[in-house]
């Protein structure tokens, strides 16, 4: 991890945190109300560098709402978000992205008629010659950076010059994930990355997530897939009715799926979150 950090720090997207702690993301009392609906209530959440955390919960439990506040898709009602040592309140997804939070959306944010490098560099094209909107694209550099990103994430795509519409669902998802690796993001968020994929394609995506883990890239994974979460993550945070009701360390391997399900359904609540019930 340290090697990687050094490499990235020397690049054009500085990676070094101004804060000294190893916490990359923290939310304090994060709350979101839609009118009278309390979609998210007082969420205290911490993510350390290199950690992979799963967010689980039933539909409408507040998982997606929580992520939308962090990624700037929506603006939270109350609370604080501390990202990379700084207090942040993103006005839009682009600001979050510029700060280093990359999101793989449930609906793939890819342009079907463009090829892999075009998609990876969408909105942040590399240019040879600056001329305002008519700046000349540097196709060669973008291809090379794309290859680097694909190698880094372990994504295998037969032909990066092929358009996205010709690719399988798994390949598309891989491109979407590789995209997050292209820009040395500080935090990756994946919203149900394998929900629409077959067995083999799911395995491919899971391998990429393992690669990210080895490289020390922190990740928030929203998933309904218990096996996947148990396999890939260090910790499970369970949401229920807009509140966090459990924060379970699963690195020791002594936590069963049934136990997690009990938290999700409301059969159990961790003592420290009693007020949530």
């Amino acid at each position, binding site marked *: 991890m340290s090697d990687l950090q050094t490499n990235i720090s020397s690049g054009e997207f500085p990676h070094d945190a101004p804060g000294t702690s190893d916490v990359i993301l923290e939310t304090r009392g994060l709350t979101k109300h839609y009118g009278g609906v309390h979609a998210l209530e007082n969420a205290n959440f911490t993510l350390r560098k290199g950690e992979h955390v799963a967010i689980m919960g039933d539909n409408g439990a507040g998982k997606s709402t929580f992520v939308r506040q962090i990624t700037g898709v929506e603006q939270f009602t109350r609370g604080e978000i501390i990202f990379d040592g700084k207090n942040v309140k993103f006005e839009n*997804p*682009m600001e979050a*992205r*510029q700060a280093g939070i990359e999101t793989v*959306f449930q*609906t*793939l*944010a*890819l*342009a*079907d*008629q*463009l090829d892999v490098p*075009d998609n990876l560099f*969408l*909105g*942040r*094209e590399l*240019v040879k010659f600056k*001329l305002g*909107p*008519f*700046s*000349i*694209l540097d196709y*060669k550099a973008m*291809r*090379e950076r794309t*290859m*680097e990103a*694909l*190698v880094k994430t372990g994504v*295998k*795509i*037969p*032909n*990066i*010059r*092929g*358009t996205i*519409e*010709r*690719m*399988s*669902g798994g390949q598309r998802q891989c491109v979407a994930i590789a995209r997050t690796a292209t820009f040395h993001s500080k935090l990756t968020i994946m919203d149900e990355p394998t929900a629409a994929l077959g067995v083999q394609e799911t395995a491919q995506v899971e391998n990429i997530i393992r690669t990210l883990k080895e490289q020390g890239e922190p990740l928030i994974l929203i998933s309904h897939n218990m096996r996947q979460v148990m396999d890939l993550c260090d910790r499970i945070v369970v949401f229920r009715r807009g509140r966090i009701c459990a924060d379970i360390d699963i690195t020791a391997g002594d936590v069963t799926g049934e136990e997690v399900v009990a938290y999700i359904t409301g059969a159990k609540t961790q003592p420290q979150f009693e007020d949530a019930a």
Partner: protein
Amino acid sequence: MSESTHGIGGLTFDAKKRARPPELNVLFALILIIGVFELLGAFLMGQSFLFDSADRFDSFLNEARLKIIILQVSIIGIIAIGSTQVIISGGIDLSPGSVVGLTAMIAMSFAQVAEVNGNPNPKAVFGPAWMDLPAIVPLVVGLSVGIAAGLINGLLIAYTRIPPFIATLGMMVTARGAAKWWTKGQPVSFPTEGYASIGQGMMPVLLFILLAVLFALILRFTVYGKRTYAIGSNEDAARMSGINVARHKVLVYTIAGALAAFAAVVLSAKNLTAQAGMGVMYELDAIAMTVIGGVSLAGGRGSIVGTVLGALIFGVIISGFTFLRLDAYYQEMVKGAIIVGAVVLDQWRQGRMAAKM
């Protein structure tokens, strides 16, 4: 990465493996249509369509016909370049025909000569102080009119969220009205020699080719082009990627307006006169050229090369009908059928693409 076929880890980006460009299909269609007219010519007329069968020319091609084919599509072709980038961005522009009318009227008003055969210009719009101006003045005025119309289109579409169809339909009606209002319906004539020279001889063809090359390069090699495709392909993705979609759309429609205005200048210079009714239905012909050229009305797909080929198909069909001495009525009917056919083909192609996944 000097070895251009194999990248790291056996990943490839072999240019040869890319799918056959759809423009090639359009080219085949063009050749096929020419072939049909050649056959019909041989059987019905006893002469060749494109080749010199009567030994009237130095080359073996019928130069006169070739010139007419390209000359008659080059002015609408300039509009079609603008329509191409609008349609690639996922929009549609119905206003260019009317913008041509309005721009021609206004530009021509600034291009008039003071005296015609020793008498004062009978069609004068302004006083003598505004006559005999250098050609650059009407050109700049004309382009400004088109840019303003395109800007209004773009702002409406980007910021009020009305569909492009409605916004540009409004501009289509408004600009036509403004064109009639400008001189209360009177034609504007007698331009200066400098202005007229913009549209004489093969100038329209030359300008069409220059603009086509310029925009083919812009769409292929610039950030503007890439984002135009991206927005047409998946607008949400473009937005989530941080592209300022609204601002980009304003630019796309403004450029389309400028190109329509340029076509108007060329057209009025060619005809030596401007009338409020100029350019009626040009927008539909321009859209037809782009669709025939393989630009998808769904957005994200197509190219200027395709549109130029589409324009040529258009020209060949019109010339072919004249060559076969068929009535102009048939031309319009067939034109309509071709437009519908091209869209059906596009739908079918997309359906097949979706089925493959």
